[in-house]
């Protein structure tokens, strides 16, 4: 038999190559096979959020939880508001002095990322937001005021309209946790950052009292959502330019929260939000249970879509919704092999343990789950010495990428399927993106950010989407 191809065979081969070439950019855009199929399906729901195919729904989170050991946590025990009780007033004053003196010196020197224009951008990013509150806006036109009944639908329909509304208002991904007294309710703080106790009660309406916030037991659903952060600015962490990333995201969320509260109240349901930054509940934990992502070595949520480049927010409602499932995308397992964040941390605050543990490092950790517990006081020292809220661990994470290049999807899909390549992927990440440098130097040059051509808010709102 001849080795030569016939003309017909040859044309067939050429056709296959052409089809491959045509499909390549679709795959490059991060489209799953499901998404590609949906292109030909006019009836595919437009509000359903497409997740990467390698982020598989799971009955259990990848973080082991001992619900019996877990108790509702007092937010004032975190290092956000409770640092002084762990390090004492003397050290706190010393760190504050180091921070303010360094910032003043670097501003005068014009240090990259700490210049006047960076400071100006930070100032701008922190203004222009609504006031956060537990109960939401004072006046909302309820359905009865419009002469119509309260909106009703199936829990799944409720998920769809809330997701559509939240996406329209600026959120990235949305999940739902149904509160259960013996389990998920323990993820709601016992005390808010301002010292008010969060009390579940058999009452009809929520209330804001002098020392308490009353949550009616019928508000059983926690809507958990992410808001994207600009990867390009956070990759300039730890500088003022990097630090303003979170300012802007919190500012955006204050408006999103107020609007979500208005939306739900306009439908005829209660909407109990965060009274201040990081109030109401443990964001990463709720995000994990809602399936928005997995826990990680940085002790924050890492999402399949945006890596750690999100902030997580939550709100309670009595609108019956369908709980979303946790996911397993191999992220937590990848953290076992990859220690890039821990290697890059200037104060060695993150765990170098190979496996997560039940053993907490201090009162700032919430017991009852297996994690890579961090030394939060060391983290705060890094904040003081960098003069910012650091964020190096977010910047160096291999999951913090834009996913335009095929290689990202290939690595993530493989890591989701098997851990055998994880060590190799970490090594290759060091080779291609640069090794860890625990010296407070940003991953990318802050000065160059000002020359980039970036989308609005510095975020890609089309990532993982198919229609615009």
């Amino acid at each position, binding site marked *: 038999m001849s080795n030569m191809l016939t003309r017909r065979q040859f044309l067939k081969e*050429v056709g296959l190559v*052409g089809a491959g070439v045509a499909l390549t950019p679709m795959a490059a855009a991060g489209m799953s096979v499901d998404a590609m199929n949906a292109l030909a399906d006019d009836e595919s729901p437009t509000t359903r959020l497409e997740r990467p195919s390698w982020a598989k729904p799971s009955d259990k989170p990848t973080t082991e939880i001992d619900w019996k050991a877990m108790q509702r946590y007092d937010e004032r025990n975190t290092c956000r508001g409770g640092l002084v009780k762990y390090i004492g007033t003397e050290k706190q004053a010393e760190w504050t002095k180091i921070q303010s003196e360094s910032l003043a010196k670097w501003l005068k020197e014009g240090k990259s990322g700490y210049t006047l224009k960076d400071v100006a951008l930070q100032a701008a990013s922190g203004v222009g937001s609504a006031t956060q509150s537990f109960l939401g806006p004072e006046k909302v036109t309820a359905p009865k005021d419009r002469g119509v009944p309260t909106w009703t639908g199936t829990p799944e329909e409720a998920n769809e309209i809330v997701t559509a509304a939240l996406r329209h208002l600026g959120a990235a991904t949305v999940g739902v946790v149904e509160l259960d007294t013996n389990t998920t309710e323990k993820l709601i703080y016992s005390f808010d950052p301002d010292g008010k106790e969060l009390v579940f009660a058999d009452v009809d309406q929520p209330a804001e009292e002098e020392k308490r916030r009353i949550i009616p037991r019928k508000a059983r659903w926690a809507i958990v959502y992410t808001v994207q952060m600009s990867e390009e600015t956070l990759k300039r962490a730890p500088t003022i330019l990097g630090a303003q990333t979170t300012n802007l995201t919190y500012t955006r969320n204050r408006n999103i929260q107020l609007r979500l509260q208005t939306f739900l109240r306009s439908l005829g349901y209660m909407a109990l939000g965060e009274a201040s930054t990081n109030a109401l509940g443990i964001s990463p934990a709720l995000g994990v249970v809602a399936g928005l992502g997995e826990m990680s070595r940085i002790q924050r949520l890492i999402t399949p879509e945006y890596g750690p480049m999100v902030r997580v927010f939550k709100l309670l409602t009595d609108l019956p919704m369908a709980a979303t499932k946790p996911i397993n995308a191999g992220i937590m397992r990848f953290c076992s092999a990859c220690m890039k964040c821990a290697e890059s941390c200037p104060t060695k605050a993150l765990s170098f343990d190979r496996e997560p543990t039940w053993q907490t490092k201090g009162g700032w950790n919430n017991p009852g789950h297996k994690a890579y517990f961090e030394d939060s006081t060391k983290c705060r020292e890094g904040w003081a010495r960098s003069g910012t809220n650091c964020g190096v661990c977010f910047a160096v994470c291999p999951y913090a990428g834009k996913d335009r290049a*095929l290689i990202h999807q290939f690595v993530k899909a493989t890591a989701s399927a098997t851990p055998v390549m994880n060590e190799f992927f970490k090594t290759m990440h060091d080779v291609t993106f640069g090794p860890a440098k625990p010296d407070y130097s940003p991953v990318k040059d802050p000065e160059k950010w000002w020359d980039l051509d970036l989308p609005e808010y510095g975020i890609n709102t089309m990532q993982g989407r198919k229609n615009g």
Partner: protein
Amino acid sequence: MLWLILGVVIGVGALWLASWARAKNVKINWLAWVLIAIAVISALSGIQNFVELMGEYEERAAWMMIPMYGLQAVVPAALAALLVWRGQKKVKA
């Protein structure tokens, strides 16, 4: 547009290769075609990753893709050429 141009270039290239082989009576066996296909796919992957990593402002990683995928493209292409050349030598002998 890049992918359209590349598709046309590959299509024309494949047609030229096939007609050149026929005109010169050069035999390209199935293994050589497989190796050529691997080389083309590797080269396309390299181009995709290079272009998109540049778009992600990850210049260092983008340039790293050139040797990584370049090697994956050049080795099978060279093997295919070797196969064809050895096949020709046999025919002439």
